[in-house]
Structures are given as structure tokens and as C-alpha cells.
């Protein structure tokens, strides 16, 4: 790719006289050692940018990137994504019906479908918001449970009882309930089974988040000296009474929320619609669906929007054509530059050759 010249010098024979001064029993002189390192003559590779080396590099980048980009774009386009924008309605409790026609399934739709809720304009990455949590409390530490970290202020105590879980993140937990129904052509609504576990990182669920009180299954006793976050309707040990493995701090909806989003418009995994066991019928057969939202979460204060997204995922995650486009763009820019430079080089190159300083 690049012209390289090894300018390692032969180590010997360069310095006549240096041997002569020594001799038997010579006094130790201050003469510096003749080593490549000390004389700054380490073998070195000097990449020299010339037309001959840069042009192939450009073409190579172009030729490698464009196919990768196309591959990425195709992968991304194969991902089916369906989005419902929920309109905020003044009443705090309402059901939104959304009708949608789900187009004919393809092979890939036999896989799991992921159900996300999305929020926009929600600055979960606000500096004071991000800090407002106590990890050791969430890790099941008894003392932190009763005496949470100062970072949780002003959501640290209420009614002289410590809040569990403390902090602003927990306090603002997304508490809408989304349900999805398949509207059978005959008009009946069939509730689609939404799996609520497996949506959080394994390490979060099993390492980072733990309920206090070790093996005590009765969480109401463990949390008895604490108070629920101000905005919550029910205490933490009632997040999912049906499943003790998804209750308290290890409730996955809670865990997912606690992983603060990077950008103000984000989505969070809500439920998983598992593929059919027989692998024959699509996970979501085509037809009309209705989405029922139990609307608890206020978003008007920050001009927020709520969304529900259904999506499959590929090896590269969710639907995002950008990376493919980026690869194709960079690849084509390189290729284009390569061509331009080649023309310039071809036209004027001969003139420069003589002027090149030999290295």
C-alpha cells in the first residue's frame, strides 16, 4: 500500500578510530555506546504519501466499504418496524385504540417481535437526573436501603422514611400499561401474550439489581421501613406481585427504566412477543391490531411524545439504515477521490516525478 524504506544502517565499520583508542587495558572512556537506539538509528519504516500509495488505498477503502454498506442497508431494510404514535390526552386514564394493517409476513417474521415504548423530549441524560440514584441500595444493601445515598436528594426521604428505590430516576418510572390485541376478522379481540421478562440485561437482573433481605421472599416485610417514591402509586414490592422473580428491585420494567437513555428521544424495550413454537405461523399474523394504553405517565410538561414500536431485530440490532449509508458514502467518497486523483496524477504526474526529493 505504501512505499516503505528501511533506513536501518549497518552498525559496523562506520567509525574508524573508535577501535584504536581502546586497546588493551584502555581507560574507560566517556564515549557513548554505538547502539542503534542511542544513536537514534532504530530501524524505521517511513511511510511516504505519494500518489502511488494513496490511490490504491482510496480504491481499496472504496471497494471494501461499498459492499459492506450495501449489506448493512439490506439487513436494515429487512427489519420490520411498526410504530404507533400515542397522542397524549388530558385525562389521566384512557385507552387509545389504534388500528393497523400488518402486511404479509415473510420468513423473518417468524422470529420474536420486540415491543418498545418510546418517549421523546425526555432528557433522561440530564446530569442531575442521571446521578439521582443509589446503586448500592438497588444492589440490595441493607444499610443503603434505610439510609440512601445523598445523590438521591431531594428524592431521598419522605415522611422521615427513606424512599426505596430512591432518586429521581426511580421516581419518574414509566408506568403506562400497554396491551396489544389481535382483532380477529370475526371481530373478537384476542390478547397477545406479552412476555415481561428477558427484557433487561442479564447482568443487571442478576448482578447489579438485587432485592434486600437475601432469601426473604416476603418483600413487604423487607421494605417495611421504607416509603414508596413520591410519584409511585404502589410500593416497589408490588411492581409485579404475580412473579416473585420480577418483583421489587429486580422487576425488569424497573431495571430497564433505570438504564438511562443516551439521547432525549429514546425507546425502551417493554415486552417480547415470542415466536410461535411450531415455527409455521408468523409471530404476528397479518391483520388488524389494537393497542390499549393505560395512560398514567404525564408527558405534557416537557412536550413529550409517547410511542409504541413493534420491531424485529437482526444481527445488527434494530432498524437503522444509517450505518449502511455511512459505509456507502465513505466508500464512494474514497472511490471518487481516487478517481479524481488518478486523473490528476495521470495528467500532471510526470512533471512531479523529477521534483521528488529522493529520501
Amino acid at each position: 500500500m505504501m512505499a516503505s524504506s528501511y533506513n536501518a544502517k549497518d552498525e559496523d565499520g562506520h567509525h574508524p578510530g573508535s577501535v584504536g583508542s581502546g586497546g588493551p587495558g584502555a581507560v574507560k572512556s566517556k564515549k557513548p555506546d554505538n547502539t542503534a537506539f542511542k544513536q537514534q538509528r532504530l530501524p524505521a519504516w517511513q511511510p511516504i504519501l505519494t500518489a502511488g500509495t494513496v490511490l490504491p488505498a482510496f480504491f481499496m477503502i472504496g471497494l471494501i466499504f461499498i459492499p459492506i454498506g450495501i449489506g448493512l442497508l439490506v439487513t436494515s431494510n429487512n427489519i420490520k418496524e411498526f410504530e404507533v404514535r400515542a397522542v397524549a390526552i388530558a385525562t389521566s386514564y384512557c385507552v387509545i385504540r389504534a388500528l393497523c394493517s400488518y402486511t404479509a409476513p415473510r420468513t423473518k417474521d417468524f422470529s420474536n417481535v420486540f415491543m418498545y415504548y418510546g418517549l421523546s423530549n425526555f432528557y433522561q441524560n440530564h446530569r442531575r437526573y442521571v446521578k439521582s440514584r443509589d446503586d448500592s441500595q438497588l444492589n440490595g444493601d441493607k444499610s443503603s436501603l434505610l439510609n440512601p445515598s445523598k445523590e438521591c436528594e431531594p428524592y431521598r426521604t419522605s415522611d422521615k422514611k427513606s424512599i426505596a428505590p430512591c432518586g429521581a430516576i426511580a421516581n419518574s418510572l414509566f408506568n403506562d400499561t400497554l396491551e396489544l390485541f389481535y382483532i380477529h376478522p370475526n371481530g373478537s379481540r384476542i390478547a397477545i401474550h406479552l412476555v415481561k421478562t428477558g427484557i433487561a440485561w442479564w447482568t443487571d437482573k442478576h448482578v447489579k439489581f438485587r432485592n434486600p433481605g437475601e432469601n426473604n421472599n416476603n418483600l413487604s416485610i423487607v421494605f417495611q421501613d421504607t416509603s414508596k417514591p413520591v410519584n409511585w402509586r404502589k410500593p416497589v414490592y408490588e411492581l409485579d406481585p404475580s412473579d416473585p422473580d420480577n418483583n421489587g428491585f429486580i422487576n425488569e420494567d424497573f431495571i430497564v427504566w433505570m438504564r438511562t437513555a443516551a439521547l432525549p428521544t429514546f425507546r425502551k424495550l417493554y415486552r417480547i412477543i415470542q415466536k410461535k413454537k411450531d415455527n409455521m405461523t408468523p409471530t404476528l399474523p397479518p391483520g388488524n391490531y389494537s393497542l390499549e394504553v393505560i395512560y398514567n405517565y404525564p408527558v405534557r410538561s416537557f412536550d413529550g411524545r409517547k410511542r409504541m414500536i413493534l420491531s424485529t431485530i437482526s444481527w445488527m440490532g434494530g432498524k437503522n439504515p444509517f450505518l449502511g449509508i455511512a459505509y456507502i458514502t465513505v466508500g464512494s467518497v474514497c472511490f471518487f477521490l481516487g478517481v479524481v486523483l488518478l486523473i490528476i496524477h495521470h495528467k500532471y504526474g510526470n512533471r512531479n516525478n523529477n521534483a521528488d526529493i529522493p529520501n
Partner: protein
Amino acid sequence: PMIGFFGRSMARETGESGETKSTKVKKHKRRKSKKESKTRIVHANILYDLTKGGDNPNRHYANNKIKTTKYTLLSFLPKNLFEQFHRFANVYFVFIALLNFVPVVNAFQPELALAPVVFILSVTAIKDLWEDYRRHRSDKEINHMDCLVYSRNEKQYVEKYWKELRVGDFIRLRCNEILPADVLLLSSSDPDRLCHIETATLDGETNLKQRQVVRSFIDLDCEFDPFKYNSVIECEKPNNDLNRFRGYIIHRSGRRDGLYKDNLLLRGCTIRNTEEAVGIVIYAGHETKAMLNNNGPRYKRSKLERQMNVDVFWCVVILLVMCLFSAIGHGLWMFQYGDKRPVFDVLSPEGTDLSPVVSAIYLFLTMIIVFQVLIPISLFVSIEIVKICQVYFIHQDMELYDEETDSHLQCRALNITEDLGQMQYIFSDKTGTLTENKMVFRRCTVAGVEYSAVNQYKIEAPNLTVAPGAEPKPNGPAFCPNTLPSLFMYHSEKDITPDPQLMDKVNECSSQMEFMRFHSQPLNQIPPDLCDIFDFFIALTICNTVVVSSPNQPRQKVGRPTTRNYLLSSPSAESTLTKLNEEKRPEHDLQHAFSPTRPNFEKTKALAQDECELRYEAESPDEAALVYAARAYKCALVGRLPDQVTVELPHLGKLSFELLHTLGFDSTRKRMSVVVKHPLTEQITVYSKGADSVIMDLIRPGTDDCKGKRQRKILYKTQNYLNLYAADGLRTLCIAKKVLSKEEYASWLQHHLEAETAIQRREELLFESALRLETNLQLLGATGIEDRLQDGVPETIASLRKAGLQIWVLTGDKQETAINIAYACKLLDPEEEIITLNADSQEACAVLLENSLHYIQAKFLCNPRPDPQAARDYAGIHFSSPVCSPASSGHSSPFLVHRLGLVIDGRTLAYALDKSLEDDFLAVARSCRSVLCCRSTPLQKSMVVKLVRNKLKVMTLAIGDGANDVSMIQVADVGVGISGQEGMQAVMASDFALPRFRYLQKLLLVHGHWCYSRLANMILYFFYKNAMFVALIFWYQFYCGFSGSAMVDQWYLIFFNLMFSAFPQLITGTLDKDVSAETLQELPQLYMNGQNSEEYKPYMFWMNMIDAFYQSLICFFIPYFAYVDSDVDLFTWGTPITTLALFTILLHLGIETKTWTLMNWMSIGFSIALFFTVALCYNASCPTCFSPSNTYWIMQKLLGDPIFYLLCVVTPIAALLPRYI
């Protein structure tokens, strides 16, 4: 009269301070007044019982324990911290770290934010601690050395540690022992009551210096008994002047004897040639002159660093702008929500609502913390590390090593290596710098007749390669003193083939003298020509301070042919005075002066056979050359004692001249004289030797007709020859004599003795006394000494000039000699026109400058193309040539370098350096290609350098080898000393010390260029790197409500600079070579790169900033769009950005790196490995410890994510794409 002036001012100062002190002291108790008075009074300790303590008057003086450490165990922490906080950057970073402890504004975990500052502080502290420990070790070693101290109780000398020594102790010193303190010499085993010391550790001069026993103790025949000593010494307070010591000793009888520098043995010197000496400690420990002279290394700030500081300031501005922008943004963001408080806008810890304005102010402070990386904390440390490495490599360069003297380049200033690459003006001394300073006697003129001595050139060639002392002699190598490197052993000087004609005359002369002495005829019957020749050679032989030693015992003095009785009777000046009154004495002297008849005839005979083996150790090479020349004419110096010089002559044998006075050389008088009693004529004769300009003015041809006529004729002829010599580039010296009548001498002596014994203004009085003596001289002749050019000087000058360096030569030599040498070393070109400025007055000088300025303008400025070829074409044309129109000269730059040489002499220079003329002078000088200042004093040299440096705003380098160059070396931006023949003073004052002038070429062209380009690139890279990294966070502010949030984890943020990206740039900064050493030396033009600061121009900083902003945009927005509207969390998104930034930064460095060595690959590999290792360990270590950021398992997760890899490939390439084009 420089020395006189200094002496006077110093004396006034001490006098005044003494007076004010003494008036104050009067109020206090007597005991205290003793301590604070202007003099120090030393009593012998054995008079007092130390165990009782209390009444010993010496107890107030510092003892001999030295402590050069800065810290003690207790004081280390506070003191070191205090010193480190003198650095502004450290204060800034501590301020930021402390800001983190304020809850409303903190950005990081407070403890973590302290980490970088603590790291930097502790690295520096550890370095300081280690240095201090080393000092402590060496102090301990020195304090525990042994010496013999007289014990009051045991009544004999007992071994004691140095640290136990006290002022007033008697110590006995043996040969080759190092002096533990400043000691007044009271007794010496040497029969002449002398003690020789080597002062190499103080001033680097390896020749021996004689020290004398205090006068009143000289006559002691038996061994010195401390118990009999009961005198009191009164001397100066401790000071750091090595060449001054004044005081007197008061004996019980009330007699006072003066004490001089010749009586004092200084701490750190080594006793040589003397078996045993006894002295009393005057100054001990930290009050010794050696310790008082111990200044720390100097600190200079390099040009690059000054430039860099400007950009650091710009960084601060950028930082503040970014913070202000964020703060305003945050205020607006808050404002848009109005009263509706969104859930994510967390209240302050107190639960109070913050108004947008208050929030914005808090945020401003927070942003300063978050963006602190923009101000590169590690830059200062990195620069220091890189410079140390650069110094190491310069040190190790084999091509800067001189085989002959076994010395290599020394970097004495560690922090201005890159200045070497930016030099524009070189100011060079001539003698010893351009020339070898190995003087060879070539020609002489005696009594108006010219004789030339051709020396054997063939000897010189082998001498250049043979180590000192290993001159090919039959038995030479057997006792060649290799272990004692002597700078003053001259070989080529010895090999002089005498002029046969002169040789004959010398022979004739001495045989006639022999005859006349034998027949007791008066000597004045000898023809005046022969007499002059005789005097001439006597003057050459004795008018110096050369010490004679034999080669097999290099430090053993030889030639003590006289008996002891004789010696003891004569030395003190007082006794000389008394002797003059007695008429018997001269006969007595005369008897002894004729040595061949003396009993130790056998011994002297043997010595005479060895005569050719004698070595002369001289303070200046001229002296040695003259003595060797005289020896070639069989007029050999065989022994020198403080009061007597022995000369061996062909027929007369050994003659001993009683040496009455030696008026040493000084740069103001420019001459030296000896006063001797001539053994043959018994006349008191003054022999003077000095610069021709000075001596010629002092010559008074006799009034009587015949003699006067002859004298005038000689004067005229000699002047002619002198001009010829100078034209040949020889150094000229005039030799003159004067015969004093007894009355004249007695009256002079009276004054002189007063001067010698004076405590105040002694130097000044001695100077005046010398002036009184050196008048009405009779010219004997002149000598021409050749000073050969050093190897490679013309080539070096040519290539330095090609590199765009202006070379000025400032020399003390006379004009003709200087011009000649300048031609020889290609400084001046025969094709060049030379403007010579010699003016007698200020006005004349002004006119001259004006004229030459007009001339230059008229001649060259009209020329639109000022290339040398064109300039040469115009050289012959009258300046009102038609090409020259006023319009064209108006807009062309008035300061272009032409093929012109400027020669200016010292006197004119003094006028030209006047405030009113300096601009004109500079205007003339800078348009000349080379400038030669002759006859300039050390002060003028430094003034010229200062003028050029300050007025032209250029980088100056001064190079010199002697004490007269010290001031110039100190004034210049970079001072270079040549460790040559004239001692080490120049080296001590210099920033770099070279063994030879020609090494300057590689030092500047190669190392200077490298150091500059490496450092410049590294600094720019540093700015780029920090800006690029910080900008990432800045872009993020648009997506987090300007809340000061960072997607980069605080650990990465803080350690990114310190660890992850630190090593590769250090390696590149140390090892990168933009151009190979060979190319740099072949194409000196490349040096202009550094002169014009092309690697680091102000706009480059901004280019780098723009580049950094572009790259950070790419590095931010590619991941942004790749992850937009997904379920990615803060740090899972931030970590890839950090990784990408690291890759981009390293790749950027890769593009900047010109030469890739294994070290570069390793360092980059190491950096990446370190980042991933740290990230993996950190992300796996503790799920709850690193609150508030919890990055548990993120890196592990990312490594399983294909998008991460895809990002890692495309982003750096996209970011660096503009760099490829």
C-alpha cells in the same frame, strides 16, 4: 577599567553595609556585635575547651556539616506542595478539583476528580524526593569523610569526620587530600612554604595553583605547633567570590600581617605536590566559598514554550466560550419549560427550585470541570519528559563526542533543547572557538630584525589523534599520565625549528656574556643588538606564570636548585625593602645566583639532560607557546618559585632571577609585568609583555640622541612587522623592558606595599600601582604566534550560513588578525566588499554609520532581486546607476543580507552601541552578511548580543570558550561553551558545552531541528487531542439540555489524557525524525524551517483546532445516527465514542509520525491494549462502586455487538479523510 570599577563598587557596598550594621550593633551587647560586625574574627579553638562551650568566640559560625537537601521528613509534604503550587497550572487544576466538592456544581465523583492532579503532583513530588534523597546520600558521604584535626586533649592530630570540623580548628592535610573547608594555610612541608592545589572542582581548571603560607609563619623552621599559635584572624564575612580573600592576622605582639587569596585553600580543592600542610579553618560548611558559589541550574524559557503559552491562553478562552455557550443554552433550556417542571429536571438537593439564571451560573462552573481536559494538564509534564529524553539522545550522540579530550556534549540547561532549532544569529568568539587555541610560535622580531621560526607541520597531524601524553617518544607511553587529563600540555608548540640566524645570535650573546662575567667586565660592552636579544628571550622565559613539571611526575614540581637558606631569607616584600637598604645583600644573592658552581651541581646536570622532558603548565596557551619557543632557542625555563625563576642558557648555565613582583595579566591593562633583579647586571628590571597596541603607547624612546634614534628606528620597524604579522593572522605580543634605579624602585615599592596590604580597594590600588610601574618602556621586540583554525571550521560556518544563520564574530583580537582569521574560516569572502568602521569620536562614528547606510541603500536597495549574484554585479557600478530609482528603493525591504562584510573595532563599537546610534548600527550590521567586531571587551560582547536580541527580536546563540565570553553566553538565548583550553568558566555559564566548534553544525542542524520539530508537533498534537476529545462532550450538550452531562464515563474522561493516549505521543515526541540526519546535514536550508517557526505558526494552532472540531463532529455524529432512537443507554453509547476517539487520535498521530520504529508500534499497541484492559477490568470489577456512573459489563456487551466494530472501522477513516487529501 572594568575590574577597577567592580572592585570599587563592591568595596563601597561592603563598606556601607558594614557601617550601617556597626551603628546598629553598638546598642547591643558586645558578644553580639562580634557576630554581626562586618568582619569575621577567628580564634584558635584549642585555646578554649570545647566541652565547656560557652566562651568559645567561634561558636556562632556555621560548622562544617553540610545539608544541601531541601526537605526534611516532616517538611517535605508542605514545602514540596508549596513549591509546586508556584506553577500556575497546578493551582488551576487543584481549583477545579476542589470545585468538584461543591455539590451544586460537581461533575465527577469528587475523589476521582482529584486523581489527575494528585497523580501529577505526586509524580513531581516523587521526582523531587528522589533527587533530595540523592543529595542527602551524597551529603552524608561528604559529611563522613575523614580529616586530621588537632585535638586539644590528646595534643595530636586525630581523625575526625568532616562534619565535626569547626571554625578555628587546626587541620593537617596530606597530599591528594580534598580540603574539607576553607583553610588558612599556616604551614607546609614544602621547603618553599608553598602548597599546590588543583581547583578543577571549582572552576574546572586543571593546572596547579600555588598557595602560600601566611607570611608571618614562613620563617618557622621547625614544625608548626598549634599550641604556640595565639594570633587572631580578622577577615571578611563569608562571600562567594572565589578570587578574593582579604583580612589580616593579628599576632600577640600586635603586629598585623595581611592575608590574601594566596593564603586561602578552598573547600573542594585537592592538595597536590605537597606532603603535608597545616591550616586553620576560617569558613566551614555552608559558609565556604565553594558552597556559596553553588547555584542551582538556571531556568530559561524557550521560544516555543512562550508561543505555547499564548495558545494555552487561547485554550482558556475557548474553554470559557464553550462554558458560556453551554451556560446560556442551559438557561434557555430551563426557561422554555417555564413553570412546568419536567420530571427529569431534578431539584437541587435542598429541594428548592432553581431559576434558569442561577442554574446557568452553576452550570458554567460545572462545565469548567467537565471541559478541564481542554487545558492540557499533562502537557507540561510530557514536555519535560520529552526534553529529558532529547537531552539524553543529544548526550549520547557519537558524532558529538571528541576522542581527543574524551569529552562529549553536555547539556547544562535541560529545557531549551528546541531553541537550538530556531537560532537566527550566532555570536562567536574567535580564539579557542574558531581556532584551536593551541598557540604555535611562528615569528618574532627583535630589535627591529625579523626572524621566522618554521615549525614542523608533520608533527601536528599525528598529535590530533593521539591521546594526551601519548606523544611518540621512545619511553613516552611508559609514564604517560593518562589518568590525569591535562589541558595545558602542548605538543605542537614544542616542535619549533629555530631560526638559525637568531640561534647563532643567541649563542654568541650568551658566550660573550659568559666571557664577560668570567672576566668581571661590565656587561654594557655587549652590542645593544645582542643585549636586546638576550633580554628578549629572558623576558619570554620569565615574564609569565608558567609552572614547570616533569612528565613522569606530572604533578611534581621540579627545579629547586637553590639552597634552602637562600630561599628563606628573601621572600617577603618587607624584607626586600630592608634588603635594599643593606648593601651587602645583592652580593650575597649574586653568589647564589650563579648556580653552576653550587654543590648540587650533579643534580642539576642530571636535570639538564632531562630538560627536553620538562613540561610547562600555563594559564594561557600564549604563555606556554612563548616559553616553548624560548626553549627552542636554548633559553629554557627550568624552575619557578614564587620568588625566583631559574633559566638555563647555553653558555651561562643556570641563572636565577630573583622575582620581586609579578603584576599579573588583566584584560584592562592587557599586559603583564615581572620585576626581577637581574643576576648579571644586578639591576632591577621590569619585563613587560602585552598587546602591541598597549605596549607601543608606553614606549618612550630615550632622550639621548644615539639611543633614542635607535629606539625610534626599532619602534618603526617593529610596527611594520607587527602589521605584517597581523596580516598573516598571527597573534602579536610586544615585549618591552625597563630598568629601574634603586631610588625609583624604592619609591614605587613603598606605594605598592601599601596597596598590597590594604584591605579595602586593594584591587584598585594594585591596578594603579601597576600603571605607575609600566611606563617609559624600552621596546625589545614582538612575537607572532599562530593560532590554528579548528578542524572543520570553514565548512561548519559555510553550512551554518547556508542554513540561514547570521554569524557575527566578536573577538578581543586586533583588527588585522581578526580579518585574517575571518578570511581563513570563510567568514569573509574575498569577493565581498568590506565596510570598515573605525572612528575616533561619537560624531565621526555617527557620520560613518550614516554614510555606510546610504551606501548600502544606494547600492543594493534599488535592486529588486537582492540575490547575491545580482548584488555582485552591482558591486562595481557607481551607486547612481539608472536602475536605481527612488520608488523601487522605497518599497523594498531595507534589511536584506548582501555580500558585504562589516568590520568594526572596539572603540567604534563603544560609540555605535550608544543609544543614539544603535539603530543605525543595527541597520548597517544586519544588511551585511558577516560582522566582525574586533578589540571588543567582554562587556561589549554581551551588549552587542543584547542589542541584537532585543532590537531585532531574533533568537541568538553565543559561543565562546573563555572567561571573557561568559557575559555574552549568559545574555544570549542559548549559550554554548567550548570546553577547550581556557578553563571551564564559559562551560559553567553555558547551556550547552561542546568539545569543538564544528559540532555546532550537528547540534543545530540535526538535533536542533529534530528537537524543535518534535516538540512543536507534539505540542500541536496535544492541543488537537484535547480539543477533539472535549468537543465530543460539547456536542453532546445539545442533546442533554446543556446540563453538563457527559456520555464518556468519568474514569475515561479523566484518564484518557493521562494514560490511554499518553505513551504514543511521548514516543513520537522523542523519536520521530521528519528528515534524516544525513539529509539535514547535506541540506542546511532545511534549518530555516525552524527559524521561521514553520512547524508551529500561530495559524497552525487554529488549523489544528478546526481539524479537532471536524474530527469530533464525525466521531460524535456517526455513533449518534447509528444509535439514534434506539434503546441504547448513556454509557453503552458513550463508550464506543470514547473508543472511536482513541482510535482516531492514535491514527492521527500515525499520520503525523514520519518514521515508524518498533517503539511506535509498541506504544500504539500498548495504548489500545491498555484501554481495553482497563475498560474490561473496570466494567467487570464492581457493579455498585463507581456511583453515579454504572458501567457494569458495558464493554463486554459492546465487544459482542457487531455495530461497535463497524463503527470502529468507518468513523476513524471518515474523520481522517481530510488529512489524506
